[in-house]
């Protein structure tokens, strides 16, 4: 009796172990591919930095450096070594968070990036929230109302979102809602009277102002973020609703849905509990991808709205040939992008039994 108990227990344990070791394998493999991808990414940025028509020594020393100083710096920067060795040096520096110094701000690039990243995150997060809360219901509605005028309207709404040059929409939005109607705050994260009133904790002004209990700052920040975030939200809505629609259509034509209907289940339950329940996993990966897309796609939006995020940082650096800042920013955006991509992959593998 106790014997069978034991063996049952053992079997359960080994099953559990197998499952978790499978998970471990997936995680290890994912980590491995993150590393390979990151090294590749660094190699590309490194090469871009090499083909730049800007002499790195002159950019440090200035145009009027003497020949001796130039040569000394040339050797100090390791430029006399083979390119592979230089790349390894670069890898080593990046691993230690050393992206060099920005010429423009005269500060280490990594400090700049830590300062500007929360602004981008705030924008992208709110944009994604808007996209999810409107896009998912729209997608489901489109799938349910297939073949009707509602379906066509939602389809066109999504296509228009895909086709809109976001920087132009931002300009028009500023013109209408700020310039003409005065409903929202203008460019920037805060009005000029509210800048630096709140101590930086997370770097996300919306959260910092709540933590500090300064509600007037909070509302000012909201009035500034709402327009750019809605624009990004529209873009993400277009993508999310389209994917939701296509997933839902696939589910709704499955046989188990017919069975559920034949059983007399209410349409609401059929749609939301059965069909929607089955698309949650792919939907989460779609949302993660769209979030990643917003983090990088906010470059133009940030410029239009003078939003002090990573996109405007990279672009400003680019226009003033501040290569250390450009490459550092590119690597960080790439890293976040890769991680979110792989995270969504991982989610898929862990939660969808078919993916094994």
């Amino acid at each position: 009796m106790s014997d069978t108990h034991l063996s049952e227990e053992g079997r359960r344990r080994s099953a559990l172990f197998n499952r978790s070791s499978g998970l471990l394998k997936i995680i290890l493999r994912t980590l491995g591919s993150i590393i390979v991808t990151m090294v590749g990414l660094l190699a590309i940025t490194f090469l871009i930095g090499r083909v730049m028509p800007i002499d790195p020594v002159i950019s440090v020393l200035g145009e009027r450096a003497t020949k001796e100083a130039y040569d000394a710096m040339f050797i100090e920067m390791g430029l006399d070594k083979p390119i592979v060795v230089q790349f390894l040096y670069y890898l080593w520096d990046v691993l230690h968070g050393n992206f060099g110094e920005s010429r423009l701000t005269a500060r280490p690039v990594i400090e700049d990036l830590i300062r500007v990243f929360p602004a981008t995150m705030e924008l992208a997060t709110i944009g994604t929230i808007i996209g999810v809360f409107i896009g998912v219901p729209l997608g489901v509605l489109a799938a349910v109302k297939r073949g009707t005028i509602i379906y066509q309207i939602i389809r066109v709404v999504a296509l228009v979102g895909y086709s809109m040059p976001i920087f132009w929409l931002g300009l028009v939005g500023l013109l209408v809602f700020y310039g003409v109607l005065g409903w929202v705050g203008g460019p920037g994260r805060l009005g000029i009277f509210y800048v630096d009133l709140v101590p930086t904790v997370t770097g996300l002004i919306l959260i910092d102002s709540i933590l500090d209990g300064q509600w007037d700052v909070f509302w000012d920040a909201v009035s500034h973020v709402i327009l750019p975030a809605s624009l990004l939200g529209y873009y993400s809505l277009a993508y999310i609703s389209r994917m939701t629609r296509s997933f839902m259509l696939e589910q709704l034509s499955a046989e188990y849905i017919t069975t559920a209907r034949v059983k007399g289940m209410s349409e609401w339950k059929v749609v939301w509990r059965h069909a929607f329940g089955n698309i949650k996993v792919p939907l989460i990966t779609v949302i993660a991808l769209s979030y990643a897309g917003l983090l990088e796609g906010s470059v133009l939006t940030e410029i239009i709205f003078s939003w002090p995020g990573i996109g405007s940082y990279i672009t400003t650096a680019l226009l003033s040939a501040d290569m250390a800042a450009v490459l550092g920013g590119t690597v960080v955006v790439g890293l976040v992008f890769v991680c979110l991509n792989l995270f969504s992959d991982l989610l898929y593998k862990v939660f969808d039994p078919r993916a094994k």
Partner: protein
Amino acid sequence: MSTVDTDHQSLRQWLLSETPMSRRQARFGAFYQGWLKSKSNRLTMIGLGILLTLLFVALLAPLIAPHDPFVQNLANRLQPIGSDQHLFGTDSLGRDILSRLIYGSRITLYIVTLVALIAPIAGLFVGTVAGYIGGWADVILMRITDIFLAFPRLVLALAFVAALGAGIENAVIAISLTAWPPYARIARAETLTIRGADYISAVKLQGAGPIRIITKHIWPLCISSLIVRVALDMAGIILAAAGLGFLGLGAQPPSPEWGAMISEGRKFLLDFWWVATIPGLAIFTVSLGFNLLGDGLRDVLDPKDSGDE
């Protein structure tokens, strides 16, 4: 009259025949059926209409444009919409906006065509080679593809343009460099399913080498899914090119590129709104046209993925 009608009828019958007698007939028949299916979709036809208009405008630019797009007239600057001789007004240097739009369509088409040729061909090459050879070649090529795929597109394009220097050709290269990976993936997936097919073994037994198999027997079968993807990608290419132009990294002044025109008009946005708004509408219209057409094409060419109709 009646003979024309019967001719027409028989051509239709020939096209819709269930038992095509030749390869040509089958091919034209498939094409005709796709056309019939697209024709019934109003949105697809609107897209096609927009693009045909764009094509004609670009081809006939010197004939249509009311003014020279480069001639400045400072006495006549920032004229409003609908003013004398200037339907869409003039910009800050007194240039006719309509004429600049018309000439700008050439730049847009030029960029889109080049990218739409370079990226899919590069992707097709990488994908089929990786898929057909397999093994290490596959691992390495697909790893490289993944790295490029993982890179944020606009940021990568920005960095490339920064390295290569601003200009239309470099913008094309930068956008192509960021656009090819999805094609490689699609081509590889197709190749993997085709590779094991009996007819491939048959050609192999006839003595065909890998190059012949890839170019003559695998590429033709990858084309249709690539075309769908290209059609869906076109809008993204236009938006990317316009974005680069807007940042001053694409076409350089005085070239009438639409993104650069928006950027010029941005300075006067509050007082002279049309200068920035009208080129934006042009970009939007064209990219909507590509999206509508791409959506329709996908329904026709790739029914398993459409979920529509």
